[in-house]
């Protein structure tokens, strides 16, 4: 506790002598000093002085220093150089692609298409842009690009899986299950395993075509391909120039009936050029010219 009583006379004497024999000092604060003290002890003012004044001083100094263009430029340069030195550290340098999930041809294509000049800092790469570039390739369904370990730029691609070959005029294109072009082949022999489709709008109805091919599995050896007629219905083309004209509605049912008919009567092994299934109630056969002639001859002699 502060005791403001000065009791000892010697002390007072010393004080009086030191101050040229003036009256002893009155410890009472003046009214305005008292008010000032109280004001300074107000919580808000205390906080303002304790926190506000250092902040203000720092802000003033900083703004004065920054008011010069040279200083601002200096800060910009410094920032840029520090940033560059950090980004060019060996830990961040990319040296090679690491492309996974694609066949060698596609891998070469990807490496060729990506606009990356090694070595490059990983900060300078726009991963999103790289990914979109890779995905522009026909053969790529989706891709993931990320900064891998040991300076490798990992490109993990999911290739499109071709399910059919589409003869588009003279070009053979590979079609995946989504009906999207997955590549181009030179000859049919390259992908003998895939069914062939043709005609306008064929690849847009690839689902139906695939179902039809599945349904036509018993005729597998004989199926040459499906032709989209008038972007409306399918023709199943077999070898020996046979055609099955399937209806626009329920072609699968029609094809099933056809197969059953074939199993029972080996119809397709006979000399039939066209089986017209477009009217589901009544299948119409067209025989080849020789067969028709022979039939006519036989009927004539029969009579």
């Amino acid at each position: 506790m502060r005791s403001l009583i000065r009791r000892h006379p010697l002390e007072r004497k010393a004080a009086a002598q030191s101050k040229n024999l003036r009256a002893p000092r009155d410890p009472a604060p003046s009214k305005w000093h008292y008010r000032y003290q109280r004001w300074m002890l107000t919580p808000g003012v205390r906080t303002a002085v304790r926190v506000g004044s250092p902040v203000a001083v720092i802000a003033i100094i900083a703004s004065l220093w920054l008011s010069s263009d040279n200083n601002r430029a200096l800060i910009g340069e410094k920032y840029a150089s520090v940033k560059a030195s950090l980004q060019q550290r060996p830990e961040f340098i990319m040296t090679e692609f690491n492309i996974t999930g694609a066949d060698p041809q596609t891998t070469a294509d990807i490496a060729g298409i990506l606009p990356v000049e090694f070595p490059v800092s990983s900060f300078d790469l726009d991963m999103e842009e790289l990914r979109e570039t890779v995905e522009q390739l026909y053969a790529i369904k989706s891709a993931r690009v990320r900064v891998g370990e040991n300076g490798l730029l990992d490109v993990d691609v999911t290739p499109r899986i071709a399910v059919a070959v589409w003869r588009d005029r003279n070009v053979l294109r590979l079609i995946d299950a989504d009906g999207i072009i997955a590549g181009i082949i030179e000859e049919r022999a390259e992908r003998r395993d895939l069914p062939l489709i043709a005609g306008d709008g064929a690849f847009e109805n690839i689902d139906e075509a695939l179902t039809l091919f599945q349904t036509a599995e018993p005729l597998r050896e004989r199926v040459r391909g499906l032709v989209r007629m008038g972007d409306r219905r399918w023709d199943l083309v077999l070898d020996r120039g046979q055609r099955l004209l399937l209806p626009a509605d329920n072609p699968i049912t029609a094809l099933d009936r056809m197969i059953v008919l074939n199993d029972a009567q080996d119809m397709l092994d006979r000399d039939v050029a066209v089986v017209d299934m477009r009217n589901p109630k009544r299948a119409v056969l067209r025989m080849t010219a020789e067969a028709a002639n022979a039939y006519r001859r036989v009927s004539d002699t029969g009579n």
Partner: protein
Amino acid sequence: MRDLYESQRAMRNMRKAAMQRGVVAILDVGTSKIACLVLRFDEAKPLDAEGVGSMAGQSSFRVIGAATTRSRGVRFGEVDAMQETERAIRTAVNAAQKMAQVRVDHVIACLSGARPRSYGLDGALDLEGGMVTEQDIAQVMASCDVPDYGDDREVLHAQPVNFALDNRSGMADPRGLVGNMLTTDMHMLTVDAVAVQNIFFCIKRCDLELAGLASSAYVSGMSSLVEDEQELGAACIDMGGGATGISVFMRKHMIYTDAVRMGGDHITSDISMGLQVPLATAERIKTFYGGVMATGMDDREMIEIGGNTGDWEHDRRTVSRAELIGIMRPRVEEILEEVRARLDAAGFEHLPSQKIVLTGGASQIPGLDGLATKILGQQVRLGRPLRVQGLPQAATGPAFAAAVGMTLFAANPQDEWWDFEIPADRNASRSFRRAVKWFKDNW
């Protein structure tokens, strides 16, 4: 009575506001020193330990600032020179604030002089067999016939001391009990209105708000008397600088207060006159060598009383301690005899226990207890104020009994008259309700 209710209620509201803010200052404006304590009120945290309770409910506050300064402009415990007192108060408050590092706006002050006068009041109310409600208590207190204490006086305390319901007496809280006749005894203390106004303005001029006013004799008793003394009956003699306060406690209530307008400063001035020394030297001699019981040894103990006139003979004067005691003792005896007379007039001898506790700055005179035993009776002891949390060691002496007592007064005040509800007949809406009740009862 109306304005008293309002001013006291306003002070009470201010005290509540101060409690809510958590900081309140205690100002003991005495004749020889002005002490200021800054209290911080915390959340009361109850102690779980068995048998260890909070002492007198004082665990909820802490003294965070304390300062004391020589009082100026105060005589007999009353403000005598406004400017000087104001400066002294500013000094004390400023230093205490600095120590507490917090600004205080609300002050609870005490009055040591101002000619206190006690009145015992009683009132009765016919309950007609009903249950005692808050309203009935207000009514029975309003039914006390207040004596004509004079226009120039102000009521400082008015505490219900006792309630009696039919033939059962000594109740502290009769609410909810059933009976026919409720009577109450009340102790009312009046002081000079001018003294109250002066201290009020003095504090206002220091940019502070008065949040409570207490009699210093009463608060000294609260801090110096231990619980059983307060319960069984005891008197607290607060020997201050300019006035000696007397308060008699019984069943934890103050039942009588008086003040003798003599104190330690009179002893000092006696020494000053008797030894021809300045007051400051006399004060110093009194505190270092003073006493009231002379022994043979004291004849040989010579005290240099000094002086700085330049006259060698004058500056080398000595006086034996026996002579000093010879000067002091008659004045101390006079004070104690006056106290004895006041206690006799109040009927102190009828109390079951007649303990007398001496406290206050002047009670530190060596040998005072021996002298007081001769004058006041055998059951005399020297009292020191209760210990409160955070109080500096320098402020634990008996001189701070009133200041410490005021901290207790601030922390857990006793119910005063104005703390109860306003009686219905003083309140417009209530009186209408009462009229309705009367109709219901009688038709």
